């Protein structure tokens, strides 16, 4: 199976409360770049789908990673190559010239060029928090979608059985490939992904894999090509325009209560919520 995984770097999500705002933009100065966590899960999912879990050294398919960004975002691509992806593409662009819709339209052109069987994405970028690219791309391609996947089982790489995490439970869908799938947090659980090559009894360790030093060195030699955004999407007009950003008022820390009895008292007479 050939899989395309779009990924993006974001400013350190664990320090998102340190961001500032400038005129018409968010300032992330001083924050480290990290791969978007959901995109890392998508890469891990792609690797699990293209291997036998008992021998992760042999790639039994092809995983291509793609990002939209300036030259320095190649670091994010190299990191994905080091964990096992086969090749990388960087679409030259900067964040302020992109929106989710343009990314989806450019990805459509890239899919037509690369011809993957599956496009796997993180369900949302934890900076813009829009949760849209997979769905937009699926419609532009005319492909089926399975969003917020918490579990994926390959059926001979012809179809995927996907358990989607939804409000109030879980929805199971079977999508015939080619398809677009976006992944949720639980996909990297030990039994989140079952490839056609992996015995059903195999359990992965929890979370994403880390690259060995040798693999990091080897990743420097894997193919990484650059594509111009305009070559993929002749119409680079955006559909959404941000005019202003502001910080929400900080919630004030309240009081520490000594006893449970006092807590109940306060909830009743002060907060009046009981």
């Amino acid at each position: 199976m050939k899989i395309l995984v779009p990924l993006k770097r974001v400013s350190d999500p664990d320090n998102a409360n340190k961001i500032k705002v400038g005129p018409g933009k968010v300032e992330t100065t001083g924050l480290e770049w990290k791969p978007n966590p959901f995109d890392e899960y998508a890469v891990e999912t792609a690797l699990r789908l293209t291997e036998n879990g008992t021998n992760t050294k042999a790639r039994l398919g092809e995983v291509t990673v793609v990002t939209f960004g300036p030259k320095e975002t190649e670091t994010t691509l190299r990191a994905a190559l080091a964990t096992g992806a086969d090749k990388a593409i960087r679409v030259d662009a900067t964040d302020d010239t992109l929106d989710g819709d343009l990314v989806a339209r450019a990805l459509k052109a890239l899919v037509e060029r690369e011809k993957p069987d599956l496009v796997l994405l993180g369900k949302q970028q934890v900076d813009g928090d829009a949760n849209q690219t997979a769905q937009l791309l699926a419609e532009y391609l005319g492909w089926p979608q399975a969003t917020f996947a918490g579990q994926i089982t390959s059926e001979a790489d012809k179809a995927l059985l996907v358990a989607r995490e939804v409000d109030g439970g879980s929805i199971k869908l079977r999508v015939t490939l080619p398809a677009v799938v976006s992944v949720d947090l639980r996909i990297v659980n030990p039994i989140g992904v079952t490839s056609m090559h992996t015995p059903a009894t195999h359990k992965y360790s929890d979370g994403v894999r880390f690259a060995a030093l040798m693999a990091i060195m080897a990743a420097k030699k894997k193919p990484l090509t650059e594509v111009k955004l305009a070559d993929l999407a002749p119409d680079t007009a955006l559909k959404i325009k941000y005019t202003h950003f502001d910080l929400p008022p900080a919630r004030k820390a309240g009081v520490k209560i000594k006893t449970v009895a006092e807590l109940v008292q306060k909830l009743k007479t002060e907060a009046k919520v009981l």
Partner: protein
Amino acid sequence: MNTLVIAELSEGKLRKSTHSAITFARQTGAPFSILALGPGAKAAAGELASFGAAKVLAADDAAIKGQVAELHAPTIAAVAKSGGFDVLVACASSFGKDVMPRVAAKLGAGYAADISGVKAEGGKLVYRRPVYAGNAYGTCELLTSTQVITVRQSEFTAAEPSGGASPVEAVATAPADPAAARVEFVGLEAAKSERPDLGEARVIVSGGRALKEKFAEVLDPLATLLGAAVGASRAACDAGYAPPELQVGQTGRVVAPQLYFAIGISGAIQHLAGMKGSKTIVAINKDADAPIFQVADYGLVADLFVAVPELITELKKAQ
């Protein structure tokens, strides 16, 4: 401006998330209609006839099933075109987030996700939406003539009926997308719970990893006593102590109840993003330095396994 509210049905039943999308429509001041799709749509349309909509449309068709986006999007897009609707809105529930971008792409429309506010300024709509886990808010406009929106349920209080009786009309299902032939709805595993939905609860009792295997044993009696919904941190869900649909946070459910109990939850940024809009927050944690105490109105530094049973006793006394 002419707004179309997309109702949300699950297993033929109208979901309350719909009423938040109606609130959005009322706030824009423009006339609006409501569209219900799938089996049960006709009954749902009847329920929605007293909210002041110009029309309530029903595509009551068993073929539009299981909240499958490919089955819903063509009819939503067709109704938008034939009815001259230029603003399409649904709740940013898992249903809305799945289907509405697909509708936007179909119509060549811009999409504003999970908005927390709307204003009509100079004949156009200006949206406000949280970014960076709610650590900043962006003000934005869509540059397309047709606009597709999902609204954050916790920021748009559920609309109440306003009386009257909107005309209910049946609409035809649009021809299926070719993509629909390649997606099969296998089933819905609905969480069986007598408790209120997280998005609608007045009180939420949330637990973290510290509860371990005793998650339900400790929290259920408290939730039952308070008529509360049960929530959980990501860590508790990942560890399997609580099912995934209980997760409160940036990428789970975003809630804003009157009273939120964070029990054994340290308060990671991603969790705070999902609950810091709550009116009153109570934190119970044995770590006095846990970040949750920075947003809690009332903090109790205590062993939850002792404090929660004691809380139940005290609440019973106070009733």
